[in-house]
């Protein structure tokens, strides 16, 4: 079986890595990574706004952002993909590619999940930070953008890396609307080989596993480093706090 996997990799590595590029559209792992990086990057500013809404003193803002976040968290990603697939073209009047559909979906979906991570970061800061900065005469906006957010975002870096792992896993659903990414490429290989589904999918699982567990290890390393920096000691209560705060709402997804 291991030999089978090697053979499949040897014969198809370009398809898995970059799809049919340069003779055709870009695909494979490259598209998976582009989708995840672009998706999370674009989702970031939206999620900061949503998080600020969630902790805002204005009640309507709090209610509205909570409603958005709960709605997104309560609906399966597949459903979301279909909504974007059918309604974005209706809204803007032109058809969009599978890639764009998936990108829009990932941005909307991840914004809601990332917002909860950032909110946990904001709420995890000691109250004294806000009180001190208000006492120094800073306004609400200044306090948020100069004191609270920089610390909250820094503390939540490991959780954001975990969120990136979730995003990579979520892009595999692009397969459902035929986005030319890694899972799609593996399915193409499977349907040309026909007789080797087990090695093909084991290989696919291994590729995701290597990529994602490497990133997970990186997140754990970051977590330890940040905990150490913030307390000045290698082992501390803050380190234990961080590990529970890293997944505050169980925000990681298994998609």
């Amino acid at each position, binding site marked *: 079986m291991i030999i089978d996997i090697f053979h499949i990799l040897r014969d198809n590595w370009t398809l898995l890595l970059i799809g049919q590029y340069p003779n055709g559209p870009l695909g494979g792992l490259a598209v998976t990574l582009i989708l995840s990086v672009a998706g999370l990057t674009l989702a970031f500013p939206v999620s900061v706004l949503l998080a600020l809404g969630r902790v805002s003193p204005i009640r309507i803002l709090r209610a509205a952002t909570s409603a958005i976040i709960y709605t997104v968290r*309560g609906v*399966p990603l597949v459903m979301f993909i279909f909504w974007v697939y*059918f309604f974005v073209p209706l809204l803007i009047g032109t058809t969009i590619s599978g890639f764009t559909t998936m990108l829009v979906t990932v941005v909307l979906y991840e914004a809601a999940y990332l917002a909860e991570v950032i909110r946990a970061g904001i709420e995890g800061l000691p109250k004294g930070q806000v009180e001190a900065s208000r006492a120094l005469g800073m306004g609400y906006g200044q306090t948020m953008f100069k004191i609270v957010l920089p610390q909250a975002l820094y503390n939540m870096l490991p959780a954001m890396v975990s969120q990136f792992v979730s995003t990579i896993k979520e892009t595999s659903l692009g397969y459902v609307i035929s986005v030319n990414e890694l899972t799609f490429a593996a*399915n193409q290989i499977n349907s040309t080989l026909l007789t080797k589904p087990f090695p093909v999918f*084991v290989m696919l699982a291994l590729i995701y596993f290597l990529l*994602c*567990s490497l990133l997970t290890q990186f997140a754990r390393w970051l977590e330890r480093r940040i905990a150490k920096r913030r307390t000045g000691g290698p082992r501390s209560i803050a380190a234990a706090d961080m590990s529970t705060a890293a997944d505050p709402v*169980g925000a*990681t997804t298994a998609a």
Partner: protein
Amino acid sequence: MSTKLDFSVLLREDYPRLIIEGIVTMLQLTGYAWMLAMALGILLALLRMTRNRWAERAVALYVEYHQNVPMLVQIFLWYFGVPTLLPDSVQLWFNQRHSEFLFAIIAVGLCMSAYISESLRSGIRSIPASQMEAARALGLSYLRASRLVILPQALRIALPTLVSHSVLLFKNTSLAMVIGVAELTYATREIESQSFHTIETYLLTTVIYLGISLLIMAGGAFLENRYRIKTR
């Protein structure tokens, strides 16, 4: 596509039957997968608590695999890959019994068991060792100390993540669509492609999904409140 919403189309043909059967299949899938995930999750958490190094490593690898590979890929591996390894008679047995449904339960259940074991483990780990020591010093046996002192606290701490993992499991049953399990998402696509009433169909299904998710979340919040440890 009509611009005015007309939900009565969903009552035509055999659409109501499709929707109801979809909901039933979805709930069955959720129920069976949840039981599998819980049972395995508890077992894995216990295995990891034993001080056996090999057991710990094996569980850690199991958890890493299931958390770092997309569930869709796991479903593909189970449905397309694993049967080819089985003898013909077993394959036949599976095929006669809705193999897609069985493999969906296995894939979703195994994947979520990894998440559940992790949240149970972190619940148990967050109880200070002195609790166990105090219980043992008071004369409780290891098992009684675990059952009466450690677990009641650990479960309360693990409850919020257990609930959010349950919601996750419920939502992820929609992925069974890709291997042809006729659950709600599958039914929705069928109806949509027959009726062309996209908005109505998707709106109905989305509301159903959202409603059940919120129900699970509310149930979790209720349990949390009901079993809250009263602190001074």
